[in-house]
């Protein structure tokens, strides 16, 4: 029964996002802005998958996912900015305008590799992964967990945000990187490019979802859930808990970085504002609102919250924070299993009225 319902859901999703929206865009009744808006939502959904893997399935509350997201975003943004750079540096490499305004003479050394697209992609994945490896190693080694983990990662997000805000880090400071022109020689402002990026984001989301599904169903995934439910018992049964945690931390960071890479060209700007503590907490909340411990829930939550954000900020700009805060509180207090959990409860109740005997499908039982 569960499979049938899932099939319907997937079919609906595919029909809507892979056929109707792009077709509408080509035929002209869905605007280019809507397409890139949804493309960005898909990026957020990819991050949410990572958050769900690490928090929903492993029970580690990481509050610095937005930082990894921005590492990916910045690497692609740096490449795009370099391609459109006009100011000339003393070492013969053109450099972005904001550097010229800041009286920088030559392109800083760490910008040089980003001239190549392939290297930018590689670095955009490598840097977050290396960061997650080193930071995660020290955190998990000393068995920092639970609330401590949340606080330390929050402090990391805060510190990195402060660093990116500085002008002397050569990443554009508060203004971030903007004025994107071309990617791989194609103009970013054409409708075709927007649709292309949208489709790439959607397909990446699909692949990420399929991969995460396989992962959580595998033995590896079961160990992750065992860690979530009782870390000490898992370690007593001779699993090296730290390795599993480290692996999932890096994986979540990679998912966030991929999302960031797709996000930056679609928005046309990336600023440190995307990586402050609040951004990270919001990412966690998407998953909580959608239903944690369920991959579908993560995607659903991120799409719904961001869709709401777009509507609310245009309709009542001042009250978005009230709505968001209210959503946070009510979700945590009353809808512990999120939207998806609520739907399932309702469905189970309706189902049990019709035929009382079978139990609702065996979904993960949440314990914190």
């Amino acid at each position, binding site marked *: 029964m569960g499979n049938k319902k899932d099939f319907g859901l997937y079919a609906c999703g595919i029909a809507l996002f892979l056929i109707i929206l792009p077709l509408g865009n080509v035929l002209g009744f869905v605007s280019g802005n809507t397409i890139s808006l949804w493309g960005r939502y898909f990026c957020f959904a990819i991050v949410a998958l990572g958050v769900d893997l690490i928090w929903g399935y492993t029970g580690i*509350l990481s509050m610095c996912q937005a930082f990894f997201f921005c590492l990916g975003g910045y690497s692609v943004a740096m490449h795009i900015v370099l391609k459109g750079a006009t100011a000339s540096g003393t070492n013969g490499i053109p450099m972005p305008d904001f550097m010229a305004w800041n009286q920088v003479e030559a392109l800083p050394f760490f910008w040089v590799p980003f001239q190549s697209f392939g290297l930018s992609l590689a670095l955009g994945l490598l840097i977050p992964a290396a960061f997650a490896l080193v*930071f995660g190693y*020290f*955190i998990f*080694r*000393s*068995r*920092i967990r*639970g*609330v*401590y983990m*949340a*606080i*330390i990662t*929050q*402090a*990391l997000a*805060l*510190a990195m945000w*402060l*660093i990116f*805000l*500085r002008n002397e880090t050569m990443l554009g400071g508060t203004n971030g990187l903007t004025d994107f022109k071309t990617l791989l020689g194609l103009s970013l402002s054409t409708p075709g490019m927007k649709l292309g990026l949208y489709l790439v984001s959607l397909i990446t989301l699909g692949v990420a979802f399929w991969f995460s599904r396989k992962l959580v169903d595998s033995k590896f995934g079961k160990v992750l859930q065992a860690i979530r439910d009782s870390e*000490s018992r898992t370690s007593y049964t001779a699993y090296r808990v730290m390795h599993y945690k480290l692996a999932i931390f890096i994986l979540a960071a990679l998912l966030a970085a991929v999302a960031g890479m797709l996000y930056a060209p679609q928005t046309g700007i990336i600023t440190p504002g995307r990586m402050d*503590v609040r951004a990270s*907490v919001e990412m*966690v*909340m998407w998953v*909580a609102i959608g239903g944690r411990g369920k991959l579908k829930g993560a995607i659903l939550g991120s799409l719904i919250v961001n869709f709401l954000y777009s509507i609310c900020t245009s309709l009542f700009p*001042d*009250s978005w*924070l*009230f709505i*968001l*805060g*209210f*959503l*946070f*509180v009510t979700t*945590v*207090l009353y809808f*512990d299993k999120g939207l998806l959990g609520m739907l399932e409860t309702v469905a189970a109740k309706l189902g049990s009225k019709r035929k009382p005997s079978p139990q609702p499908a065996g979904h993960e039982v949440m314990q*914190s």
Partner: protein
Amino acid sequence: MNCIQKVWLVILLAIGIGGGAFAQQADSISIKVAAVLSPPNDTARSQALQYLAAQKDPSTFPLLAAINDKKLYMLDGKAVTTGEAENFGGKEVFTVFYLYPQNKEAAVKLPADQLQKVEISRSERLILNVVLPYLNLTSHDPQKRIMAYGQLVSAQDTGKIAILAKALRQEADAGALTAGKEVLFQMKLHEALSEPEAKAYIDSLDGNWGENVGLILKNYAENGNVVSARAYAAEKVKALESLQGRIEKAQNLFSGISLGSILILIALGLAIVYGLAGIINMAHGEFLMIGAYTTYCMQSLFIDTLGVKSDLYFWVSIPVSFIVAGIFGLVLERLVIRHLYARPLESLLATWGVSLIMVQAARSIFGDLTAVKAPAFLAGGWQLMPHLVLPYNRLFIIGLTVIVVSLTYLMLYRSRLGIRIRAVTQNRTMSACLGVETRRVDAITFFLGSGLAGLAGCAMTLIGNVVPDMGQTYIVDSFLVVVTGGVGKIAGAIVSGLGIGFLTKVLESFYEAVYGKVLILALIVVFLQFKPRGLFPDKGRIAED
């Protein structure tokens, strides 16, 4: 000190040479002043002005400055000028200053129409050009006097030293006197021709210890007139620099302690609540904000509504901000947190949501920026030695922290309530079995913890603006204090609060503030490698999960 006296003697001698003629001169000056104020014929005023400008007597400077500013008036036959305008009963009144023979403030404040303006033509004012650099020497504003002293250094006038010395004899403000003496000694030093003379002035500069002494001596060490005294100046510069370095360190130490005490105030409540209920209250910073806004409201209430223009509002707002923030905390506990005990991660998210709501609410009620006027009794600072001033407001915060921490200690370790709180912290179920009303203890603890944050907010108004997201600035820092200190331990909060505050300031003095923060985070991560449960971990079975 001896050297300073020596120099004064030299100056007095220099002035004293013409001493005999002094009394006579003063007489003729007062005659000329009278001629300026009510000239007997058309040319008398400009002649008198020319005479006064040539004499350059400091006692006439206030009068000449008033003429130059076109603000010379007569009041009961005496020359006066006006100062700041003030609104008094819907009418504009001015502070009035007498100009000659004494430069002093009149007891009355008068509206402009009671003063009789003395019109002085432009050509007459132009006569004063020769004395313009000196006119501010007798200004009523010490700041302006200090500037005037400084400008004398570059003035092209051989008589300037004598004029400055005369003006300084009337100087009453300590800061301006130091600045003026520095200029005087500097000019004397540059005119000095023999080595002992130059050394005496170098000593005087050193003893006087003004703002720019290092620069002056450094210049002299490089290209002073008396070559043999250059090395002496260089020596003094070195000694001064090392002294200044020590003072800077002391200042850093002090600001580290004061930052640490704010962190302690915030972290104390956080640590108690977290230890008791395992709740990470992300909205804790917002109670700080509530405390600050309560202080602001108290100020508006007392000063604007009740018209009490004393510092009373501040004393009242200390307990009121505690109670108001505490009540908000109680409401939060009752509505949200009560349902989330034993679910720490969820409580973190829910309280984050609450904090979003509270910040936005504050923004829509109070706007983006408000400031509390610091109470008058906390203005200024305690001058330990020249150039080392400990501001009273920071001292007050440190004092407040000491008192609050001691009270909290007494409450936790010397009262029945404290025993209950500690019992519930150690073992909730067992305490409940023994008849402790754990729910009530939770509520009271939450009230106390939020109240402490409110107090911190009240204290924060002394050193910064009141903004809706002021709590967010400190919240991550204070969480780090709790993590480093160990859960629910007062001693931990104190030691790590002071340590982090102190380290922040020390690192800030080496690097930019931001890199200091990053370094501290790295240090804390390293520290947790060795002490994962903080400085003061629980021992024994209760420490296990």
